[in-house]
């Protein structure tokens, strides 16, 4: 293993070469394409597309949906992982399976489920209409779909860490009379800090990029129910390639930032462990 024969060296560089080529063709080249296409007609056209009214509105709606998803899923993730890892109860396995359902169904089916729940053939549709609430083809639908597709992202990161940590420290603290919030802040949170941050990053990444489910519920009203990925679709289908890639470049930059945060968080998390 440690003495590198000529053959094993050859194999090593052959495999590294294949890997690098594969990653370059499949991942790096598409990223470069987005940037090159975005600036094809010069920086002015790029700026025009990025600062377009509809683009700004799409950015704002994307931020709104992402913030809602992160907020709800954070609350859920903290409470659910606490309940699942610190206590014994019947049906735990069922609970964890149910939490994972949203990521196993196709985004299109997620959209379909919300159309069936809030659309015009639903039993609660008349009641919603009386209250003047529209979910399908409106902002609430987009927000709900985004929350749904990112549902387990934070709890999934927290559960393994909390499980590995066990319950001894919390039990000791509770027996010594520490309050619930103090226990969480002083004992539990330091353990899960990095996993928690990582979960938020993953959740935000997926939320801002969600396409299928949001596409079903949006109705594609420009300036009203258009998120960034949907705006990209409209521009691309109208053969406005340069603006489509310009808007995409915003998402590419966000993706790269997320990847950097991810590796920093993972590195820090490994060091802390």
């Amino acid at each position: 293993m440690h003495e590198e024969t000529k053959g094993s060296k050859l194999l090593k560089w052959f495999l590294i070469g294949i890997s690098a080529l594969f990653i370059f063709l499949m991942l790096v080249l598409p990223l470069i394409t987005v940037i090159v296409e975005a600036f094809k007609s010069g920086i002015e056209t790029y700026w025009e597309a990025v600062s377009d009214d509809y683009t700004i509105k799409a950015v704002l709606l994307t931020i709104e949906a992402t913030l809602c998803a992160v907020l709800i899923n954070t609350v859920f993730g903290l409470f659910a992982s606490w309940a699942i890892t610190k206590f014994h109860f019947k049906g735990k396995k069922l609970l964890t399976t149910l939490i994972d359902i949203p990521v196993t169904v196709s985004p299109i089916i997620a959209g379909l489920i919300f159309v069936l729940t809030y659309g015009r053939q639903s039993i609660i549709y008349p009641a919603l209409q009386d209250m003047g609430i529209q979910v399908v083809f409106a902002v609430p639908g987009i927000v709900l779909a985004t929350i749904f597709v990112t549902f387990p992202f934070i709890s999934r990161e927290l559960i393994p860490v909390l499980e590995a940590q066990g319950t001894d420290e919390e039990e000791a603290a509770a027996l010594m009379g520490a309050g619930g919030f103090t226990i969480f802040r002083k004992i539990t949170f330091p353990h899960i800090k990095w996993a928690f941050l990582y979960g938020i990053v993953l959740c935000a990444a997926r939320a801002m990029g969600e396409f299928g489910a949001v596409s079903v519920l949006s109705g594609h009203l420009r300036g009203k129910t258009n998120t960034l990925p949907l705006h990209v679709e409209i521009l691309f289908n109208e053969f406005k390639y340069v603006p489509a890639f310009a808007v995409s470049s915003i998402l590419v930059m966000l993706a790269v930032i997320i990847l950097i945060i991810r590796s920093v968080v993972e590195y820090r998390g490994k060091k802390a462990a």
Partner: protein
Amino acid sequence: MRKKANKRVIPFFGLSMGVTLTILSLVVLIPLASLVIFTAQMSWSDIVATITRDRVIASFEVSFLTSFIASAINAVMGVVLAWVLVRYDFPFKRLLDGMIELPFALPTAVAGIALTSLTANTGLIGSFFDKFGIQIAYTRVGITVALVFIGIPFVVRTVQPVLEKLDSTYEEAAGVLGASRIKIFWKIIFPEIRPAVFTGFGLAFGRCLGEYGSVVFIAGNKPYETEITPLIIMSELQEYDYSSATAIALVMLLAAFLILFGVNIIQARNTKILKGG
């Protein structure tokens, strides 16, 4: 009573269960229940008639075939990538490792239009293959390319931890005893990572079956040829034909749950290996 008190020294059981179940119900359970209620109102013969329409069956074929091929490619490349990342040291290794996660971070629609413009006849890769008369974009090959992109992280990330834990003394012993590298891989390493490979394959396959965003742009969406099942569901929804959309969605849900079930069985075995059992 005493036993219960012993069990729950830690506070907030009621509160955390309450919050968990409330949010779970609102976000997941009630919407799922409406799917069940809606399905119950449909007649069995309607469902069968919908899912056996020629165009729908053709879409199943396209979806399952391209997803299977893409996941198989990712299974092979995933093992190679995981091996390279665990066993070798080389420049920019951490960069390569970080890149693996890109398909999770990059919105699928962006990936879709980037891959389409690369592989169209005018694109960098497309124009190269066009010389040999091979079309990538707007064919099943294009769909497969998009699905390979989506599925890259799955196998790498399931195989990597197993390889890290793998004890290399057996390989060394086999090497000293004169076994060839190919034999060492198939007889000693592969049996250990096999559950992880299948798990990653299953997860990628499930993800690919439901994928929509990256595929719609590159597929060309020609009925019977390059129309994937999620797209059919989407078009039924746009025509407000909720019964047809639901019937087709049920087939995909069933497939997704079967895959997940299989993955869970394999994963249970994988955990055993990771824990050294």
